[in-house]
C-alpha cells in the first residue's frame, strides 16, 4: 500500500504540474521577470496549492497517525540559520537561470531534451555535494 500511496500522490502531483503550466520554463521565468511582460500564473498555482494543502493537512492531522505509517514525520526546527538562507539563495539563482525547480524538471522527462538532461545531471551532483557538506550525514 505504501508503494501505491507514493504512486498516487506522485501522479496527482505530476498532473498538477502539467495542467498548471509549471512544466513550461517560459511561464516560470515570465513570473520571475517582474520588470518584463509579467505572467502571474505561478501565483495562482502556489495559491491553489498552499490553500488546498493548508486545509488538507488540518483534516488529515485530526487522525492520530497516517493510514499506512505509525507517525507523521514533520520538521520540528523553527530557527533560521545561514545554511537554510544561503541554500535558498543558491537555489533561487539556479531557478531564475533555468526556469526549472526539481518537480517540473522530473515532470518534463516525458519530453526529454539535452538542456534538461544537462540540468538533471548537475542537479543530482548538487544533491550529492550538499549531503557531503552536511554534518548530519
Amino acid at each position, binding site marked *: 500500500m505504501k508503494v501505491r*500511496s507514493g504512486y498516487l500522490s506522485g501522479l496527482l502531483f505530476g498532473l498538477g504540474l502539467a495542467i498548471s503550466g509549471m512544466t513550461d520554463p517560459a*511561464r516560470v521565468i515570465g513570473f520571475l521577470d517582474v520588470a518584463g511582460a509579467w505572467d502571474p500564473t505561478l*501565483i495562482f498555482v502556489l495559491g491553489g496549492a498552499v490553500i488546498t494543502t493548508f486545509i488538507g493537512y488540518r483534516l488529515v492531522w485530526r487522525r492520530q497517525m497516517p493510514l499506512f505509517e505509525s507517525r507523521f514525520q514533520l520538521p520540528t526546527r523553527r530557527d533560521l540559520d545561514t545554511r537554510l538562507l544561503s541554500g*535558498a539563495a543558491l537555489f533561487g539563482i539556479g531557478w531564475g537561470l533555468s526556469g526549472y525547480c526539481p*518537480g517540473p524538471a522530473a515532470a518534463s522527462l516525458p519530453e526529454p531534451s539535452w538542456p534538461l538532461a544537462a540540468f538533471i545531471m548537475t542537479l543530482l551532483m548538487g544533491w550529492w555535494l550538499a549531503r557531503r557538506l552536511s554534518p548530519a550525514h
Partner: protein
Amino acid sequence: METMSWLQGALGGILIGLAASLLMGLLGRIAGISGILSGLLFERGGNRSWRLAFLLGIVSGPGLLILTGLDWGNVSGDSGAVVGVPESGPAIMLMAGLLVGLGTGLGSGCTSGHGVCGLARLSPRSMAATLVFVLAAMLTVFVSRHVLGGSA
C-alpha cells in the same frame, strides 16, 4: 487566453495540494520533491520503494496526458503542448542544475517542500526560505534579461 491560463494554474495548484495532503494522510510525509528524490538516490532503507513510486507518478502524470493526446497543458504560446521547451542552452543549464541541487540540498527544500508544504504548515523556516529563493530568482532574471540583456 490569459484568464484561462490563470484558471488552469489554480486548478493545477489544487491538484498539487491534494497530492501533498494525500501523502501526509497516507504516509505521514511532506511532499518535498528535492527531499524525496535525493533521498531515493542517496539514502538506504525502507523508504526507497514509495519514493521511486512517487517519482514514477510525477513522470507518468504529464506522460499520460501526452499519450492520450489530452491538450490540458498550459505552455505559453503553444496550447497543444504539455511540456515546454527549455529556454536556456546546456551550459547555463549545467550551472543552474548544480545551483538548484546544492541550494535545495543545503536549504532542505525546494518550491514544493518549502513553498507549498512549509507555507501550509506556517513554518517560519519555510516562509523565510521561500521569500529568499523567490527574490533571488527574480533578481537573477532581472540581471540576466534586463542588465546583461541576454535572452536567457
